[in-house]
């Protein structure tokens, strides 16, 4: 037997999916996160569920730990070594501001205080020539000082033009290892070998910032897997692919936005399977809400991402918006008497009041409980029973502050949270000129299905899809991910008098590296290689990516590529300049190894389900409670049709169908609701 496991560790919950390729069976579980030792939660669950961990051959792990560390600023103390004379690169940033009429915008502080930004005498020029050799004595002095001072845990090294000539960065690392072996080091030409020094330095600093934390995390994860007899451990990364823990330790910055990319990949798979076209994916967990646009069911990518304006992280990652709004978001009344929800969260501990873990402050989950929208008989996170009276007490405290009824306040909390989330949905759709009204809203995460229909209503979206295991959807997506590495080499060549041998040399060099890396990752067959080259008109500053065929390239292939460029340029920008000279800038090879395919299990047909209960649920506080059918999702079959108002419970999430809506179940178990 060789089971495959996908895991998504969030701030509040850890989700787990087990797939048996022989039977096609999927098992899911949702447990509370154990932030101190993240893999503990998973292993404990395996033990409790009597799962034979030695039968797990692949274990794919997605995590929000890296993202949260950046947002909450909980990473390591970093020192930055940079070219002397340029120590303020992180403070100057790009001199732009996000709002062109904003007098009060505060430029963010980057992640390294000025006193830890150290200029090292060295200087490389645009063509790679060394103008000032590296001052090794100075490097030694500074590293010795940092080591003896003891407050810094990681060093980022970013010199001008290192992507052309990395010699000084490499030598610096040698010197660091000589004096302070074991300290974490990130070199800018390894993290991001591209020009534009601020973006590269910023990304490198973030990599160093995350290294100690993520190395520790990976280490514990590896040990846990080893002890449990689990086979191969893989880590989900920000471009939707997976990589080995060894690679993850080397470049932790590529784990930022790791968790969400799983759910987005899974959304894409369902969208393509069902022919849904445009989609908006939204993931609502305990702490945060993420939205991503998938035009034509394909996820959007970006490499212009920022932790916030002024703090770029220039790696390729799925393009999603996140806000602090989740089931555990705390409700409070501010000094102006206004009800606020989030971004602070009750987290996993103590969690919402109804978890009975000592939380007394009202959260979104507590509001839903009071409104009757969560059914106490469905267990969240395995062993949890809901303490309804604790929710009521928490809500009453706010109600007396506001002078309103408990239901009114609960409704208000849900409305405010929905308003915040609708704004995030707008940022990825209408703010980009996409009219969401023809899209399908696919909602997942533990709390997504509870809010999905109301969110859809606020954007006039009429179709909502709740996957079969919404609470573990990101973990499921982790299972689907391929191993993917991107290789890139800048080698400027003008089209006139092109040396075709040089082109083939570069591509072969990249592909040799890819083959070697994949062998190290444990692949037997060679990866699938996708080649492309970045092209521009001589004189332009930004390139368009043009695909290239495999094998030994001829001049004819390049000519075809040039034609492609002109057509793309015309298509994208509305014009081309025929006859104008082109230059090739950067050669790219994406190496993709598909591990296994996952067949979504099909659901059999069967009789229409009966509700397990009917009870009062508040949909609009002013209308009072409405008699509502409560269903157990596990009773649904392919072809099941239910009408709102309804509450559909399952172990990992609750789905709410408002009055007037209709839900249908497809052959894969997805519930599509027309609102």
């Amino acid at each position, binding site marked *: 037997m060789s089971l495959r496991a996908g895991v998504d560790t969030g701030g509040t919950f850890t989700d787990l999916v087990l797939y048996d390729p022989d039977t096609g069976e999927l098992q899911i579980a949702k447990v509370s996160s154990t932030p101190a030792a993240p893999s503990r939660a998973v292993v404990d669950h395996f033990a409790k569920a009597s799962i034979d961990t030695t039968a797990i051959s692949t274990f794919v792990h997605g995590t929000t730990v890296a993202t949260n560390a950046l947002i909450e600023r909980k990473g390591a103390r970093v020192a930055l070594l940079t070219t002397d*004379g*340029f*120590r*303020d*690169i992180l*403070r*100057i*940033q*790009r*001199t*732009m*501001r*996000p*709002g*062109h*009429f*904003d*007098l*009060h*915008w*505060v*430029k963010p502080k980057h992640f390294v*205080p*000025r*006193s830890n930004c150290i200029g090292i005498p060295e200087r490389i*020029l*645009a063509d790679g020539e060394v*103008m000032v050799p590296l001052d090794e004595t100075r490097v030694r002095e500074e590293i010795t000082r940092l080591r003896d001072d003891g407050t810094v845990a990681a060093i980022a090294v970013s010199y*001008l*033009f290192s992507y052309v000539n990395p010699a000084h960065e490499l030598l610096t690392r040698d010197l660091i290892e000589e004096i302070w072996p074991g300290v974490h080091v990130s070199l800018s030409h390894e993290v991001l070998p591209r*020009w*534009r*020094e*601020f973006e590269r330095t910023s990304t490198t600093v973030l990599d160093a910032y995350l290294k100690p934390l993520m190395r520790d995390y990976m280490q514990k994860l590896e040990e846990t897997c080893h002890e449990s007899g689990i086979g191969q451990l893989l880590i989900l990364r920000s471009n939707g692919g997976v990589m080995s823990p060894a690679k993850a330790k080397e470049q932790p910055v590529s784990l930022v936005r790791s968790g969400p990319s799983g759910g987005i990949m899974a959304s894409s798979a369902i969208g393509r399977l069902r022919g849904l076209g445009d989609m908006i994916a939204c993931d609502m967990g305990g702490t945060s809400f993420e939205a991503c646009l998938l035009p034509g069911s394909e996820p959007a990518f970006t490499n212009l991402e920022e932790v916030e304006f002024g703090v770029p992280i220039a790696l390729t990652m799925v393009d999603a918006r996140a806000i602090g709004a989740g089931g555990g978001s705390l409700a409070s009344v501010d000094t102006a008497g206004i009800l606020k929800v989030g971004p602070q969260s009750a987290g996993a501990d103590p969690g919402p009041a109804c978890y009975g873990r000592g939380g007394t402050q009202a959260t979104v989950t507590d509001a839903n409980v009071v409104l009757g929208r969560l059914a106490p008989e469905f267990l969240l996170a395995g062993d949890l029973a809901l303490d309804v009276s604790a929710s009521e007490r928490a809500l009453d405290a706010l109600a007396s502050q506001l002078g309103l009824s408990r239901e009114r306040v609960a409704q208000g909390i849900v409305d405010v949270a929905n308003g915040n989330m609708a704004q995030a949905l*707008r940022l990825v759709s*209408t*703010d*980009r*000129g996409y*009219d969401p009204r023809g899209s399908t809203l696919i909602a997942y995460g533990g709390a997504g299905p509870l809010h999905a229909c109301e969110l859809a209503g606020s954007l*006039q979206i009429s179709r909502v899809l709740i996957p079969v295991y919404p609470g573990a959807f990101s973990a499921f997506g982790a299972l689907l991910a391929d191993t993917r590495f991107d290789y890139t080499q800048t080698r400027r060549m003008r089209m006139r008098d092109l040396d075709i041998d040089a082109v083939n040399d570069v591509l072969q060099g990249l592909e040799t590296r890819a083959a070697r890396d994949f062998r190290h990752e444990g692949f037997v067959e060679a990866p699938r290689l996708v080649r492309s080259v970045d092209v521009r*008109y001589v*004189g*332009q*500053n*930004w390139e*368009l990516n043009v695909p290239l065929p495999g094998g030994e390239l001829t001049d004819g292939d390049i000519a075809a590529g040039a034609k492609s460029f002109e057509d793309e*340029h015309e298509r*994208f*920008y*509305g*014009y081309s*300049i025929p006859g104008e000279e082109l230059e090739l800038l950067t050669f790219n090879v994406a190496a993709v190894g598909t591990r296994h395919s996952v067949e979504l299990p099909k659901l059999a047909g069967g009789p229409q389900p009966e509700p397990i209960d009917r009870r009062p649920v508040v949909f609009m506080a002013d209308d009072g409670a409405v008699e509502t059918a409560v269903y157990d999702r596990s009773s649904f079959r392919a072809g099941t049709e239910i009408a709102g108002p309804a509450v559909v419970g399952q172990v990992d999430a609750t789905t709410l169908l408002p009055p007037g809506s209709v839900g249908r179940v497809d052959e894969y178990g997805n519930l599509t609701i027309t609102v």
Partner: protein
Amino acid sequence: MTTTPTDKRIVTDPFLLEIIRNNLITTCKEMGIAMMRTSYSPMFNEALDFSCVVFDGRAEMIAQAPFIPAQIGSTVHVVPTAIAEIGAENLSPGDVIFTNDPYRGNCHLPEFVVIKPYFRDGEILAYTANIAHMTDVGGMVPAAFGDHENMFQEGIRFPPVKIYEADREVEAIFRILISNVRTPKASYGDMKAMIGSLYLAERRIDELLDRYGRDTYEQCCEDIKNVSERLMRAQIASWPDGEYSAEGQLEDDGVVPDRPWKIKGTLVIRGDELIVDFTGSDPQCFGPANQTFGTTASSAYNAVFHMLPSESEIPYNHGCYRAISVIAPPGSIVNVNYPGSSVGGNSDTHPTTVDILLKAFSQISERSSAADGGTCGCIGFGGDDPRTREPYAHLHLEGVGWGGRNDGDGNDAQFVKNGNCANTPIEVAETRYPFLNIEYQLEPGKVGHGRHRGGFGTRRIFRFLSDGVHISSHTNRHRERAWGLFGGEAGTNTVIAFRRKGETEWVRAREAFGTASYGKFSNVVMNAGDEMLFVTPSGGGYGNAFERDPELVLVDVADELLSAKDARESYGVALDGNTVDLAETAVLRSSAGGGGRS
């Protein structure tokens, strides 16, 4: 007192209104992305010195995006003027209008404006427009900034003409333009990029009209403007009625040594109407520091919009501009007459004008800020690149310290208020041009102190790699300083200085080259191995420095931006190692009489 009635009913469903409005704003942003990606000059693809706007069929602006305030405000005037002068009835599908005329509502000559009428069923339903700062426009100096005395020296000027007809280049216009600039290839590529972005915008408008239909679109245009007008008037009405004046001066015009020029601005708030009256400003000067009408209107809008609360969500379009009127006497420094020069007015006078108006606003609101550094840091470089033997021209811009404000310190190294340009990465600049950056960091110790201090400026040293580099500059605040507010101190000065190869001392322009001004000069020549220093000015302080939270002073000292001596003398804060000595601080502050330094 009457104002235009604002009880115009909003017809469009609010959800649809927001979708369509955001769609048009996104179209502007997409035009910007296309500009960035297809243009040739770092001025466009790194500094992002351009703005893309959409006007409706009546030539009234309906959408803009966060681009350059100075350019956007100017399109309010130059776009309708150009259209009216050619005559909308003389436009056909596939036409593109082009102008850079400073006197016809543009902000200054180097700003090129292209306008494309969008036709549907034979009628013009929209105009897409792009205004962008061309690095070289011919004229007396490469990259166009210096000590010009008239418009003819600035460069080639085009009154409104058609540059495209029926989707084809009007070859004559291109030939004339390209043969009169130093960078023909880049300029041609940049023009194609500008015009290409208009075609892209039209595709988006096509999609919009296909989806919603003409009637909905046209009603939306009216509603978009009316909503903004209503919100803008409500904001103006929230400010107390009255007249609020302030003055400031430019230190020189680049031609006449040591003679300052005064700008006076009066905010006249009457109910829900605002008039910005510049009567009382000096006559136009002899150098290029004059503002055109377009620049002056733009600076008025700029100041008003900067005073809106941060959470204000007023969409910026024609509706806002309806509520703001400007009075700029012809022949004054804020409305230059032909053939007066104005190339520096848009970049370097505009920020002072805005800060003067903010000074006026400080009489009615604490939310105004102290003056920012007040210069774009425009330095033009030109010459022949020894590596390629081709001529080049590059316009260099810098960030300055912004002024302190009620809720915090001014930002460091941020581009002045009339712009929103990014610095060109060193790795990009050095790959393209034959000079090096030896240093580029904050200039420590020099800032306008205050309870909330101003932001720090930067310090840059260039070293030239070839002979015969022509350098020109139009900058300010070498003598004047960014003023403080409510007891804050003024910021520190700009420094531009030169050092020949082998020398040790830095020498400023007047001493080195006999120019009339430290900051405004044309075509001084540098050779291989020579260096140039550029320190940008810091922002003014807000409030009494002796009331600053000592912990914040400690942070600046730990950051090595202020010394312990600065802490004592300027802030009355005593430090003991890396903590605040509260007792000693209390003594220092009380012995100063609690009033700080003046």
